[in-house]
């Protein structure tokens, strides 16, 4: 299955170019121009990885991250930042973001972080599946309760 990526950035020319580059590499990409839109989209749809700009006008990166993690805790978030907002990105990591990158970033770095984040989410989901299977095996009645 393709990795589902949501790019959140108010700089349209940046988001469009990155989106097309990821699509050429076989990712399933969606773009959100604002934190508010990203929060709505993540509440409705399942993304594997969100690439999130830290500094946006309507809702900043940290607030957007909190909303995303609030509705989809397993979705991994890579934060994009300028020099001035590195502290915000670090705060984001404390709140559960997978990692951060400085703009402009090297191709390999960003694609690598997206793959790493996607792999982490897949591993986490697998562990949850395994835990559920164990629960069912050890207590078959739990299927009826759950």
């Amino acid at each position, binding site marked *: 299955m393709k990795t589902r990526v949501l790019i959140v950035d108010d700089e349209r020319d940046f988001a469009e170019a990155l989106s097309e580059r990821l699509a*050429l590499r076989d990712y399933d990409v969606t773009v959100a121009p604002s934190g508010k839109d990203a929060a709505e989209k993540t509440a409705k749809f399942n993304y594997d990885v969100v690439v999130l700009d830290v500094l946006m006008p309507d809702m900043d990166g940290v607030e957007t991250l909190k909303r995303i993690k609030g509705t989809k805790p397993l979705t991994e978030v890579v934060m994009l930042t300028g020099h001035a907002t590195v502290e915000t990105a670090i705060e984001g990591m404390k709140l559960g973001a997978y990692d951060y990158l400085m703009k402009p970033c090297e191709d390999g770095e960003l694609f690598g972080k997206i793959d790493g984040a996607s792999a982490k989410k897949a591993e986490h989901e697998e562990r949850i599946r395994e835990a559920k299977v164990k629960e069912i095996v050890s207590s078959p009645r739990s299927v009826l309760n759950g």
Partner: protein
Amino acid sequence: MGDAFETLSEEGFQFFGRVTASVTHEIKNALAVIRENAGLMEDLIALGERKGDLDPARILALAGKIGTQAMKADGIVRNMNRFAHSMDEPLADLDLGETVELLATLSGRIAAMHGVAFETRVPDAPVWVKTNPVFLETLLWACLECAMNAAGPQKRLGIVLEETGSGARVRITGIQGENEPEFPSERHRDLYLAIGAEVRFGPGRDEIILELPKRASL
């Protein structure tokens, strides 16, 4: 002037720091757009070589975007350079229209972060004053910052420059001044008195008025 310089050493540097941080962020954004579009161009050329169908119009469009961003970054750097050179002279002849436009442009992204947009209105003819550029810019910034915090529901702030008999007036409109009861503070007072200016709210506290003399006596 002693108090004014003490205030300037804090307010002025904070202002300079905020503007520099915002402007360098804008430059990094422009560089990021250039980087991604150059990368996309490389991807499309590599793909075109493999498949034998390269679309020149698509490549030209991307080159156009890169050119636009390079010019945008150049404009940002030019404005920052003009701003930095305002520290050169303690007393200078300023075309206030240019100063107002420069400040509005430099703080445009900060305004956008507040969800606010500026609309400048300056006369066609230059409005000259002789003053200390750093004091004036710090004071103007203080007014803009207050206005951003107190922006009315429309979130559109007018920056209106008018020539007066004794000098010039800058009005920042579209605010709800009752939300900023502390403005102008004692610190701002030090600054405006240093250049013989005055800062006050208009009647109804819906605008900030900055009155400037034709010549500041420093």
